[in-house]
């Protein structure tokens, strides 16, 4: 019989990490090696309860375990947040097309992320850092609602800032505590001089409203729509372009995406909804 597309691989949660009041990361060890490309997604099953799509936040170079960062947004993610170490789960995938990192070689990589959108970006970032010499520069602009809402705080406020070849700016919508950084939505820290736009690609991942306005700014700066890579969040269910829930115009986000260039999808309405 042909391989069963719907069969999950068994896996186990070995560690949970509180990232923010509403976001947790789960370190998951699959029963067998699980390879993926950065930006691809998996369907994570909480047995008996349901399944939801997530882009792993760990480096694809690590195949024996993966990290998935999950925001409490609905029923399944709410239940996942109650899970601890030892919880058995299921994994299907990886699905779709991730970031075409090879195509970024020789260019400036302008990475704009917000909120839980930093999860796929972390996986990409770790991939970029592994081969930092391939790129002209890696310029990151990340935002969160408040300083507490930033995920991966330790790396973000520490090691990542010091990496050679990486330039990073952070902002929060609303400052509190001892935050002495920039305050304002992420578009307020974007500048057309951040990178040489003619030789740059932009990667955008975050809440739809943020992606919408960041894309507007990037287009205004003169970015080519074919050089703006967007991680689209739709209702991906089967993972292989059959069940129909995630259709965005002619595309199945699960199979043709979840990473699309703005050029590919701009003609369809409601892409940010």
């Amino acid at each position, binding site marked *: 019989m042909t391989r069963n597309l*719907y069969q999950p691989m068994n896996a186990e949660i070995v560690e949970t990490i509180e990232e923010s009041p509403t976001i947790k990361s789960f370190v998951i060890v699959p029963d067998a090696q699980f390879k993926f490309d950065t930006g691809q997604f998996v369907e994570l099953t909480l*047995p008996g309860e349901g399944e939801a799509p997530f882009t792993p936040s760990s480096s694809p170079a690590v195949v024996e375990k993966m990290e998935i960062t999950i925001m409490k947004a609905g029923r399944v993610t709410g239940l996942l947040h109650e899970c601890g170490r030892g919880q058995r789960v299921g994994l299907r995938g990886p699905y779709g097309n991730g970031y075409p990192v090879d195509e970024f070689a020789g260019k400036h990589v302008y990475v704009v992320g917000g909120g839980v959108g930093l999860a796929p970006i972390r996986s990409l970032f770790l991939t970029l850092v592994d081969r930092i010499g391939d790129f002209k520069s890696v310029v990151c602009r990340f935002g969160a609602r408040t300083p507490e809402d930033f995920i991966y705080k330790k790396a973000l406020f520490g090691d990542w800032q010091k990496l050679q070849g990486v330039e990073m700016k952070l902002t929060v919508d609303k400052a509190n505590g001892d935050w002495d950084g920039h305050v304002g939505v992420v578009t307020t820290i974007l500048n057309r001089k951040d990178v040489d736009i003619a030789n740059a690609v932009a990667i955008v991942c975050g809440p739809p409203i943020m992606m919408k306005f960041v894309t507007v700014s990037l287009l205004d700066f003169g970015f080519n729509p074919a050089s703006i890579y967007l991680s689209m969040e739709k209702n991906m269910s089967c993972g292989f372009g059959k069940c129909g829930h995630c259709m965005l115009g002619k595309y199945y986000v699960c199979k043709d995406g979840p990473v699309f260039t703005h050029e590919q999808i701009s003609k369809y309405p409601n892409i*940010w909804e």
Partner: protein
Amino acid sequence: MEMAFISRLKPLLDAVAKTMDVYVPAKVGEHYTCRKYDPSGITEPELNEIRMCTPVKEFLFPLRELAAVFPEPVSPKQVKPFAVFGLKACDLRSMEILDKVFMEKDFEDAFYIARRRMMLAISSDCSPPGESCFCNILAGKPYPEGGFDLNISHVIDGFLIEPGSAKGKDFLFAHAGMFGEVPDALLAERAKLREAAQSQLKQITRGFLLDAPVGQIVEGGYNSDVFDEQARTCVECQACTRICPTCHCFYLYDGKQQDYFTKMKMWDSCMRVGHAQVAGGANPRKMLGDRLRHRLMHKFTYFLERYGIDMCVGCGRCIDAETGDVDIRAIVKRLNDELLAKGQQAVKAAT
């Protein structure tokens, strides 16, 4: 054996039923539904004039099925051979469409394929076509030209049986004693009957003829008001998608048994308000008009672009089933007329 004659259908069905379950049309009110054939019955089986209500997808992609068991996977139940009798040309085309989806290279749906391989498709010519039939608008014909194992054409005093596959030929060969020769006169009669059915169909669909390829018409009508207008009468019963032989949206859900977990697969409908909604609440098709547009776009432009054929066979089941005055023929015709008017305006503006 290329073509055979048989005077009664019962011996043919009895022969098929010796080795497999056979599903046949059964008239309920004005329509045909489907039931299992009982060879011990004494009545002669009926040949349906037009497609049954039951879409053929029910046999290949059932309403609900077990898709996975875990943590210990179990081998799926072996599918036994089965035959469906009374399929029509539109049903065969719908199978071609579903094949594109469920047999797509590298993403083959093992459950669909297992059933597809075990199915013996016995089709027949339409005569006369139904009031909601419009396959001719979409380049279809009221008789099958391929995709069947056996096709039956009703002629005076009997039936012509045409094989369309190795399986069909093998069957005719193995039961050669049951069949008679086919004189040229019967072939001529079949051709005449087919021509008559085509003329009748033309008459039925005369108000829905299109002036351009349907994909172009529907794509051109993206911003038409027709979708929002139709949304005023549509009652979101989803019958159109459930009964459609080509609609194939499905929903995966998880279940818990005493000592194992399940993943189930169940038909879904793009007309359902939450169909495209994500966990955070965002929904790109929350308006009914957007969902109606998406359904039409998927059928006539997106699917065509992806697989090279459109995703509607003109069977008219959605027209018979709908409760809210939404007629797919009328929508496409309206878009056709709007496109035509736009073209005329453009010509006028240029001259």
